[in-house]
């Protein structure tokens, strides 16, 4: 808002008060690098969405909704040779549109709702990780919309969003090859850098590098991978990926139980 200089005689520029706040010298406590935070997952909670899921892991809270399949926008695309299993030819395959958003109150500083660059990048990462799992050939000329909303960022936000999105797709009854489970990692700097599984926000802030892995547990295929920072040599990153995949396998039974419970709830609620 432009300053009203005729009535308010204040300074031209202003800085946020955090600059002058006392430095929080809070270092993250030492912990077992392979511990996963307890996860609470619930599917089928939004009445207006085809499928939905809510995931809470430590301080991270994500809500995800799936709508569709509905008619895809975009021009006519030609046909081609049909795929196996009665699937549509490559040009007529369905599309998956993903949207990742952070609520303005999700982090320590307020962010404008129109996040911009980072959210576009994470939406693309979400799409690239979910596409291998969804049988888009069974939804020709249709599009599925997945929207993930991060309510609170307590560390490994992208991993939680991936898991919630996969649960929501399964809850919507979309045909999938397998669930996608996401896991976050961060590298704690120091004399002997170690990779920590499922970091909290404090650990992420003090980290030298971060990595998110997405795994399809039954097929044992890596659906998504996104990492950056000063992680060191390739051996260090290889160890991190191995640790992440192990974490994803450990998380899978919790998600299976969540889906079973949601199916039972839906069965009990349906008028017979």
């Amino acid at each position: 808002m432009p300053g009203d200089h005729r009535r308010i005689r204040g300074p031209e520029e202003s800085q946020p008060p955090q600059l002058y706040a006392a430095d929080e010298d809070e270092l993250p406590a030492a912990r077992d690098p392979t511990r996963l935070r307890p996860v609470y997952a619930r599917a089928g909670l939004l009445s207006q969405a085809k499928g939905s899921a809510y995931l809470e892991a430590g301080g991270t809270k994500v809500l995800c909704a799936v709508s569709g399949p509905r008619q895809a926008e975009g021009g006519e695309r030609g046909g081609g040779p049909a795929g196996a299993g009665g699937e549509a030819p490559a040009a007529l395959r369905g599309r998956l549109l993903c949207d990742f958003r952070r609520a303005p109150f999700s982090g320590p500083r307020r962010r404008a709702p129109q996040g911009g660059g980072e959210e576009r990048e994470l939406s693309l990462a979400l799409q690239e990780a979910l596409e291998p799992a969804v049988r888009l050939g069974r939804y020709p000329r249709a599009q599925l919309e997945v929207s993930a909303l991060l309510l609170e960022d307590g560390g490994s936000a992208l991993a939680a969003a991936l898991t919630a999105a996969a649960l929501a797709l399964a809850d919507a009854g979309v045909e999938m090859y397998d669930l996608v489970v996401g896991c976050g990692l961060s590298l704690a700097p120091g004399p002997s850098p170690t990779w920590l599984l499922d970091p909290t926000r404090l650990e992420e802030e003090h980290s030298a590098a971060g990595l998110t892995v997405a795994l399809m547990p039954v097929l044992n295929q890596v659906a998504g991978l996104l990492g950056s920072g000063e992680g060191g040599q390739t051996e260090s990153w290889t160890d991190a990926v191995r640790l992440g995949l192990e974490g994803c396998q450990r998380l899978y039974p919790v998600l299976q139980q969540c889906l079973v419970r949601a199916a039972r709830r839906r069965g009990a609620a349906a008028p017979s």
Partner: protein
Amino acid sequence: MASVALSEAEKVYIVHGVQEDLRVDGRGCEDYRCIEVETDVVSNTSGSARVKLGHTDILVGVKAEMGTPKLEKPSEGYLEFFVDCSANATPEFEGRGGDDLGTEIANTLYRIFNNKSSVDLSSLCISPREHCWVLCVDVLLLECGGNLFDAISIAVKAALFNTRIPRVRVLEDEEGAKDIELSDDPYDCIRLSVENVPCIVTLCKIGCRHVVDATLQEEACSLASLLVSVTSKGVVTCMRKVGKGSLDPESIFEMMESSKRVGKVLHMSLQSVLHKEESLGPKRPKVGFLG
């Protein structure tokens, strides 16, 4: 990206060839196409470079501007990346079509430079909290022939090597008013050290093996690729899986080993070419766009 229509028979031909370590143009799985690099092609920039990798043509211009340092890092300058996919590259980029790809490439570039060791940002500081150099790196995609990320990272490294930032001094008056003075000699500038600037190596999974530097046809046969950004010392700064398919964990580990090998060779040859070009001096014959 630009798409090319391939028949099933052509795809099978490419896949079987890659199994035998023989690609359509005779290269091995870990060979790059012939890369041409030329720096200082645009005169209005602080540094520029043009890279031609097969049919992929990239032009990068770096302009150094004065700005205010970011609040969290008051004694460092920073880099900004802008990628423009020109409609010349492929008809799909007409109008707003190339924007998505442009944002994706820009975000990847931000990610690979998002660490302390790639570029020495403290040398870009003029006076803490007040003035710093902002390097605006503009990437122009002139022609798309496959393997965009690799070519763009090579061009960015060459342009940063070529960047000459004028030397300035901050003079303080008696009242405390600061004045910035530009040095009189136009050749008095600071250069950036590009020792630790990473290069992207894209490995496309085709069949059971992976290839480096895929052409458009090979990219159409591959469902998933791994993008690794390595420095000359083998330090990995970014890793990303690209594409619609999934990857086996074992192939990811193999691809990372390959990227380290390939990255080292790429960095060595790029360094030697850049130093050789610079040693030719300002009187060297410029090839430009007509060569």
